[in-house]
C-alpha cells in the first residue's frame, strides 16, 4: 500500500505558496499597517484642513490675507529664495569635488556636510546667537556699526541655511559618483573648458537630482521652526516666518487662524511630496531607458 502525495497546485502556485503568506495573513498585515498610518499620518493631515475650514471660508480667507500673515508669507519666501540657491551652489561645488576627484579626508568631509542633520534645531539657532548676538563674539562690533543679525532677517536666513546645508549635496554626491568621470574627461580631452564641461555634460546628467534636492531643501527652509524661533525675536510683521506665525496665533488661542496658516504649510508639504514622487518616477523610467540602450 503506497500513498502518493499529490500536488494539485501548479508549479507557479507552489512557488507562490513557498514565498508568500496566506491571504488572511497578508490582509491582516496590510490592515495593521494602514491602521497605524491612518492614526499617525492621515488623520493628522486631514485634521489640519478640517480645523482650518471649520469656521467657514470667510474666517479662513481673513486669516491668510491678514497683513501679519502676508508679511510672514513674504518673509518665508524671501528666506527660502536666499537659502536654497546658496545651498544649491554649495551642493554642486561639494559634489564636484567629492564625486569627480580622489583625495584624502573625503569621508570626513561627507560626515561634516551631514552634520547639521544631527544637530537639534534649537542648538542650530543658539550657535548663531553665540556668534552674532549681543553677548556673542561679533555682538559688540555689530552693535557699534548698527548692524543687526540676531532678532532680524539675516539671523533667520543664516539659521535656515545651516539646517538645510546637507539637502542638495547629499542628493548630488551619490548621483555624481555613480555617473563616474568618463563623460567629463572626454569633453575636456576634446577641448571643452571647465565651465563648458559642467554646463553641457554634467548639468544635463544631474538636473533631476538637483531639482529633487532643491525641492526638499525648500520644504525644510520654509518649514523650519526651532532654529528660526531662537534667532527671530518673534516681531510681528517683521521677523515672523509662517511657522512662527502659526505658533503666535495658536498661543493666542486663535485656533482657526493658526490652522488656516498651517494649512498653507501643509499644502506646501503635499506639493513637495507630489513633485518628489513625480521626479522619482521619472528617474526610474530614465534608468530603465538607459538600461535598454
Amino acid at each position, binding site marked *: 500500500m503506497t500513498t502518493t502525495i499529490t500536488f494539485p497546485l501548479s508549479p507557479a502556485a507552489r512557488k507562490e505558496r513557498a514565498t508568500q503568506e496566506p491571504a488572511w495573513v497578508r490582509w491582516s498585515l496590510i490592515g495593521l499597517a494602514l491602521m497605524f498610518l491612518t492614526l499617525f499620518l492621515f488623520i493628522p*493631515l486631514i485634521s489640519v484642513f478640517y480645523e482650518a475650514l471649520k469656521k467657514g471660508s470667510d474666517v479662513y480667507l481673513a486669516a491668510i490675507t491678514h497683513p501679519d500673515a502676508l508679511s510672514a508669507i513674504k518673509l518665508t519666501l524671501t528666506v527660502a529664495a536666499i537659502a536654497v540657491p546658496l545651498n544649491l551652489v554649495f551642493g554642486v561645488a561639494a559634489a564636484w569635488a567629492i564625486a569627480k576627484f580622489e583625495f584624502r579626508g573625503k569621508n570626513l568631509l561627507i560626515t561634516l556636510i551631514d552634520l547639521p542633520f544631527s544637530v*537639534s534645531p534649537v542648538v542650530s539657532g543658539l550657535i548663531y546667537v553665540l556668534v552674532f548676538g549681543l553677548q556673542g563674539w561679533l555682538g559688540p562690533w555689530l552693535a557699534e556699526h548698527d548692524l543687526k543679525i540676531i532678532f532680524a532677517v539675516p539671523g533667520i536666513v543664516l539659521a535656515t541655511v545651516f539646517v538645510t546645508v546637507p539637502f542638495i549635496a547629499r542628493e548630488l554626491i551619490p548621483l555624481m559618483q555613480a555617473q563616474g568621470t568618463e563623460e567629463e574627461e572626454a569633453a575636456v580631452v576634446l577641448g571643452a573648458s571647465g565651465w563648458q564641461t559642467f554646463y553641457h555634460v554634467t548639468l544635463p546628467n544631474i538636473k533631476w537630482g538637483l531639482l529633487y534636492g532643491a525641492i526638499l531643501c525648500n520644504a525644510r527652509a520654509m518649514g523650519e521652526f526651532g532654529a528660526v524661533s531662537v534667532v527671530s525675536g518673534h516681531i510681528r510683521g517683521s521677523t515672523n516666518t509662517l511657522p512662527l506665525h502659526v505658533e503666535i496665533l495658536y498661543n493666542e488661542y486663535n485656533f482657526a487662524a493658526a490652522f488656516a496658516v498651517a494649512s498653507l504649510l501643509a499644502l506646501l508639504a503635499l506639493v513637495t511630496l507630489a513633485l518628489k514622487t513625480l521626479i522619482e518616477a521619472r528617474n526610474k523610467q530614465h534608468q530603465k531607458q538607459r538600461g535598454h540602450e
Partner: protein
Amino acid sequence: MSTFKQHSILPGFNLALGFTLLYLSLIVLIPLSAAFIRTAELTWPEFWTIVTTPRVMASYRLTFGASFAAALVNAVFGLLVAWVLVRYHFPGKKLVDALVDLPFALPTAVAGIALTALYAGNGWIGQFLEPMGFKVAFTPLGIFVALTFIGLPFVVRTVQPVLEDIESELEEAAATLGANRWQTFTRVIFPALFPALMTGFALAFARAIGEYGSVIFIAGNMPMISEITPLLIITKLEQYDYAGATALSVVMLVISFILLLIINLLQWWSRRRSIES
C-alpha cells in the same frame, strides 16, 4: 599635494573644494565651535553643576525615554509598513508610499498643533482615549506621540530598499529545504534586514532627541514632568542664562555626535552585509 589628491585631468578641484571648505567653515564649523569655546569659559565643576541639576536630569530622562519608546514603535511598525509596501499589492499603495514621507515635508509646528488638537480631551482621538483613562495631550505620552510621528519615515525608508533587493531565490531555497514561512522570515529575511532596521531605529532616535517644534505644543511643558531638554535650552536663553543654555547645548551636541558615529558604523555594517549576500 600629490599625496593629498590623485591626479585627474578634470579642472575645478581647487575652486570646488576651496569653496566647499570655506562655506562649511563659515556656516557650520565656526558657529558650532562657538558652543564649545563658550562652554570652555566655565570651569569643570561649574559645567557639571549646570548639566546635572534635578530639573535638567528630569529633562534628559524624558527626552531619552520618549525618544527611545517612539523609535521602538517606529522600528516595529516601520518594518511592517516597509514589508507591506514592498511585498503586497493593495489599492492606493502608491499614494500611501508617497505619504510616508509626510513627516519629512510637513513643518514641525504644523504637526505639533495638529497632534495637539487631535489628542486634546475634546479632539477626534482624545475624546475616545480620555474616558479610558489615557490623557495624551499635555503629558509625556503626548511627547511620545509627536516623536513617533516625526520618526515614522526613517525606518520605512531604510528598510524598504534592502527588502526590495532580497532575492526571492533565497526564500525559495529556504522553502525547498523545508522551512515554513515563519522560519524563512525569522532565519533568512529578518537577519538580512536587521542592520537596516537598526540604522533606521538610530536615525529616528537621533532625530527625536533634538526635536522641538512638534513637541512643545503637545507637551504641556511642565518642569520636571513634561519638559524636554531642547525646551530647557530655550527657557535658559529667554532668561539670558547664556552659560546655562550653551552648556546644555554642548551636552546635546556631544550626544548627537556619538549617535552620528554609531549611525555611520551601522550604515557601514549594513552595506557590508548587502555586499556579502
